[in-house]
């Protein structure tokens, strides 16, 4: 049997990508996941600019994970400048990472994945056939966005989230509103778990190297050491010993490996690595959804996202309790008196790593003694997953080869979509092409 599968511009993913798959006599002759999004050259844009401008500029790498980019950038700046953020600032950043994870996972699960579960081409026919599901998704997404609106003006390109803290510290009434929003999400989150309980993911297993940050006493999103099973824990500054980037000719994104192995980052990788630290409510959801770690089925990344959403709601509420108690006793921003710290640049480099919704996100800047950026590097989660997605496609194709071409295309798109690729981000991504 010979197929030329050519899916040009995979839909319902963020950004532009193609899958090229050429099968002859039941063997894969050619397989490429092409990133055709135009490269944007952020590493160039930053050179010659004041390091304090890096967070608002790099936020513009991605509209869907702008808070993660801002946070990773701020951490790299603070590392380079020797600034230690106050506890309150760190707590508020953690709530914002949770809010972004929630809006991103919910957008993916309800607007992009749910149509697949009903065989609908998009959320628009789904909204006509199953309005309650779509409305629930939109309510949850709005709630997550509202948390960002209260704290940093909006989700896309957060305002006032800067080196050393926040230009406008939250008032008690802001925290009360965030608490009210989080509590309002609980019944819909419960329904979300029940909804995905009814929909089983395709069976397919291919073990790989799961990479994330890890912290001893916390489900790591903001702080942690670089971790994958059988690897020693590494400080983030040593990330080049943990992962390597290679340029691939057919893609404007790069391929990432750890050692010789392709890697997977994101919700499933984080759960595989850090399950013991997730909240009890989230563990309960994982059991109901049939997710047992270590899980090697990439389709289960969707389910891992549901589990993380549950965790993010409850963990945000816990963080709010601490922040509430701190607000009157501890100064908010990082200069010891509640204000933003003075910047005293010196030549050096800084690295910032956070867990964005799709996985580990790295920013590194080199600065001169005036605080001017002389070198910059950003490694994006989707770029880290690309090689692994190719390996998954290679492994799954023989099992689905006898299906009609449209069914093969659909399954491959579902597989790619399970990774929730964010292509505009990784250009530094996808189309399935069948060749006949």
């Amino acid at each position: 049997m010979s197929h030329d599968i050519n899916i040009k511009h995979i839909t319902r993913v963020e950004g532009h990508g193609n899958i090229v798959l050429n099968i002859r006599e039941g063997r894969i002759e050619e397989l490429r996941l092409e990133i055709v999004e135009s490269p944007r050259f952020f590493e160039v844009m930053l050179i010659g600019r004041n390091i304090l401008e890096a967070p608002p500029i790099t936020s513009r790498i991605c509209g869907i994970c702008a808070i993660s980019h801002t946070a990773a950038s701020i951490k790299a700046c603070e590392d380079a400048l020797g600034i230690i953020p106050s506890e309150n600032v760190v707590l508020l950043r953690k709530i914002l990472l949770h809010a972004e994870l929630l809006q991103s996972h919910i957008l993916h699960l309800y607007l992009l994945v749910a149509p697949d579960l009903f065989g609908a081409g998009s959320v628009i026919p789904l909204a006509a056939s199953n309005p309650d599901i779509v409305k629930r998704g939109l309510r949850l997404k709005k709630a997550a966005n509202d948390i960002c609106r209260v704290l940093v003006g909006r989700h896309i390109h957060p305002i006032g989230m800067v080196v050393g803290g926040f230009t406008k510290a939250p008032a008690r009434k802001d925290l009360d509103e965030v608490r009210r929003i989080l509590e309002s999400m609980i019944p819909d989150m419960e329904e979300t778990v029940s909804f995905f309980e009814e929909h089983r993911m395709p069976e397919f297993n291919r073990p790989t190297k799961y990479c994330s940050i890890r912290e001893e006493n916390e489900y790591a999103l903001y702080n942690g050491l670089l971790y994958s099973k059988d690897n020693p824990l590494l400080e983030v500054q040593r990330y080049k010993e943990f992962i390597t980037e290679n340029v691939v000719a057919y893609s404007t994104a790069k391929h990432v490996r750890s050692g010789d192995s392709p890697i997977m980052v994101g919700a499933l990788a984080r759960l595989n690595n850090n399950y013991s630290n997730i909240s009890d409510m989230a563990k309960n959801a994982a059991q109901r959804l049939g997710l047992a770690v270590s899980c090697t089925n990439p389709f289960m990344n969707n389910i891992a996202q549901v589990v993380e959403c549950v965790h993010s709601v409850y963990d945000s509420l816990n963080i709010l309790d601490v922040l509430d108690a701190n607000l009157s006793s501890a100064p908010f921003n990082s200069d010891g008196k509640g204000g933003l710290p003075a910047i005293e640049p010196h030549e050096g480099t800084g690295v910032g790593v956070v867990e964005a919704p799709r996985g580990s996100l790295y920013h590194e800047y080199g600065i001169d003694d005036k605080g001017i950026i002389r070198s910059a590097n950003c490694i994006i989660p989707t770029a880290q997953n690309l090689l692994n997605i190719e390996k998954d496609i290679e492994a799954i194709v023989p099992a689905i080869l006898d299906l009609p071409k449209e069914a093969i295309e659909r399954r491959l798109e579902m597989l790619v979509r399970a990774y929730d690729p964010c292509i505009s981000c990784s250009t530094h991504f996808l189309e399935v092409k069948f060749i006949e």
Partner: protein
Amino acid sequence: MKPKIGVFSFSSCEGCQLQILNLEEELTTLLGFIEIVNFREAIDEKREDYDIAFIEGSITRESDIEELKHIREKAKILVAFGACADLGGINALKNLHPQDSWLPAVYGRRDLFSDTMLTKRVKDIVPIDFTIPGCPIDKGEFLRFVQSLLLGVQPRLPDYPVCVECRSKGNVCLVEEGKWCLGSVTRAGCGAICPTFRDPCAGCRGLTSAPNIESLCNILTEKGYSKEEIKNKFNIFNGLEVINI
């Protein structure tokens, strides 16, 4: 008949089209009045019978030019959607660097992906009918724009500066506090959202039609900002505008 809408994305963070999906409360109502026929981020369908094309992103590749011209041919109304399409925006920052330095800085070699060029605005390639400014676009402004078109009213953008909205909110002036802020020369319509969070306006909505750049530069110079620093603030979003500082 419902007007048919296409949303197209060139070089951008895709945040502006995401703002459409962020209309959580209004989205289902909106779909009662318009038909989305092409929107790769959200739907499988890819039709070419759109009346209104929203163009997100700047034009940074030769291949984008043909695609944009094709969309212009098909669309009755073409809208520059967001700062990247309107102004070049953040994407234009790379134009400040020699073109032969771009590939080596990101990929470590220069023999790859040669299909890249100086960043251009949508209006540099094809005539545009309307602009929805901002980084990102304001959801309310997008809704008002669609409403105007449905009612057959010409959509209008404010031509007064962000300062007007900022003062009406009772904010303390950031420039008076010694911070750089481009609110006095930047087109309003955002509700002065950044200065309301005590973060200076970076000019993402573009300049008003008669901006008093000289006066702002004089004040910022008095506050201790160098020409170079002032220039750098303007070029975050307005790098393709001719601004004399």
